[in-house]
């Protein structure tokens, strides 16, 4: 191929830095944080075994759930998404907060 993988990544990164609104970048940072937290948890479980399984599950589900909700928020807050133009970013944020509260309640219940 005339263009290798590294130039593609570099182009992607530049494009991303320039064209993405700050708001979305914040959310992306949050997503990244959730991601590495989840990976760390999973690595720990692989290392030391699944006991107690419920605690591992609740932690992991918390990461996964938060990731999903943040992703939804990002989608809804992205002005380029025409389908979600009816939903104001505030409404998306409120949904995000509400869903997170419910998620964390369930996680706390399950963590044991």
């Amino acid at each position, binding site marked *: 191929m005339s263009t290798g993988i590294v130039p593609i990544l570099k182009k992607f990164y530049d494009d991303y830095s320039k064209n993405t609104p700050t708001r979305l970048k914040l959310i992306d940072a949050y997503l990244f944080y959730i991601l590495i937290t989840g990976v760390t948890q999973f690595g720990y479980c692989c290392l030391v*075994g699944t*006991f107690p399984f419920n605690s591992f599950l609740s932690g992991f589900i918390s990461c996964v759930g938060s990731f999903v909700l943040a992703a939804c928020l990002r989608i809804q807050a992205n002005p380029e998404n025409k389908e979600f133009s009816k939903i104001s970013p505030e409404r998306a944020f409120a949904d995000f907060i509400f869903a997170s509260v419910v998620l964390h309640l369930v996680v706390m219940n399950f963590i044991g």
Partner: protein
Amino acid sequence: MDNALKATSKVEDVYYAIAAAKNLNFNVDNDKAKTTLLEALKADETPLSQGYAFMAGALLSGDLKKLVDAVEDVIAQSDEVDGRMRQFEGGVASTAIVIEGAFELAATADKAPTINENDLFKFSNYFVNRRHVNNLKSAFYLAKVVKTLATNKFFVPVAAVRITPITSPKVQIQVADLLGKPIAAASLAVNAEHAKRTQDGATVLSKEKFTAKGNGIFEMDMQQKSNPGKGYYVVQLSASGLTAPYVGITGTQIQVKINAEIQVTDVDISVSEREQSSTPRSERVPANGMLPNVLKLDHHQKLALTFKVSQKGNAAAIAVHQAFVRLEHGTSGEEIIYMAELDPSTKLYKMDLDVLSSGKNFGFVSGEYKMELIVGDAVVENSLVWPIARLNLQFSEQGEPARRFRDELRAKPEIRHVFRVPEARPSKAVSSAFTVLVAVPLLVLLVLWMKLGANLGGFSFSPATLGFHIGLGAIIGLLYCYWTHLDMFTTLRYLTIVGIVTFVAANRMLRQKAAQRTKSAKSD
């Protein structure tokens, strides 16, 4: 009492009235009493009422023909039980009252009661059988009727009962009435019509006399009279010179058992090859002892055993109920029992043991076995178990002695309970390290956000915003409390309250934000 003699009274009441009047020496109008009695009887014709009527009639005088004739009909209504007893429905009291009434009536009318002798015996058997009564009324009437049956002048049933033990060949019987009083009439003689052996029906005695020993006791020595040999015997009796009113004895059967002592002799054991057909040499087991040497047998050989059972003092061979040969394994105690068969030609008991074909029965357990003779019978006094030899059997295959049944009943090995070992947990160092590792991304996030330029510039200090942030913090705190010590219900309650506050605050705050945004967008 005159009132009691009304036409509507029960028979029982009429009887009580008449009896009471008689006891008090009142004048009773016989005819009126009779008609009342008969009318009451018409209304209630059960045997019990008839019994009361007989007893009442016995107290009256005059023509009692109707009642006397009724006795036969009433007796016909009784039920036979087991072919030996007769009774009326209603049990001891009813039966006793009827018979008592019949006899009392007979005494007054001076005419024997119309009861068949056989039926009377059956009634007597019933009374004797029911002598353990439960209630007072039955006891009273039972005692009354038994006394009447022993002392009346028409029929006194007597019985001959064996008073010696069943195994005594000198048989003694005693003749007594229902109350147990012996009948010592001088003219009474008891005979044995015949004595039959139960096993084969052979008659061993016929028309022998019993010797009178006084006080109603009669004796006969069966051994002396006929020497019948061992077995169960039934002696049928008859009596002569039994004067009226006594009835009975004839047809009674007495059981006698004559025991014998046996001896087991001529116990011969021989070991030979399977293929060998000629009679092998045999060894005789010493009397009351054992063969001194252990007989070795393997699967090429067979063993033959013969022995003779006879009565002491008589060399003739006899048969007994039980003639077994028992083989017990020395170490495991397992046993096998063979039946010895009576050879009809030689009249000796024999048993053959073919080692090859009987291996299965032994479970192929080789080793030393003890051989015993078991000889017994119901009429033998000295049934015996006699160890006669030791055998060493070697089977073609090897088998294990089966688990003995008793082993199953012994205490099983103790079970030590082991609590579930908790799963291995990682060491504290590892888990602490990972806790830190999980917290680290948070720092990374904050750094990233700062780099991206997140700031609190747009933070307005309106009550809505503050309320929202405080509410959210409260929710997080509540979740932490839920994790540590609360339960779901209280948490939900608090959550509802805080949630509503936070929601309202959030609503306001976001509305303000939205208004700001549209304002700035418009102004752009």
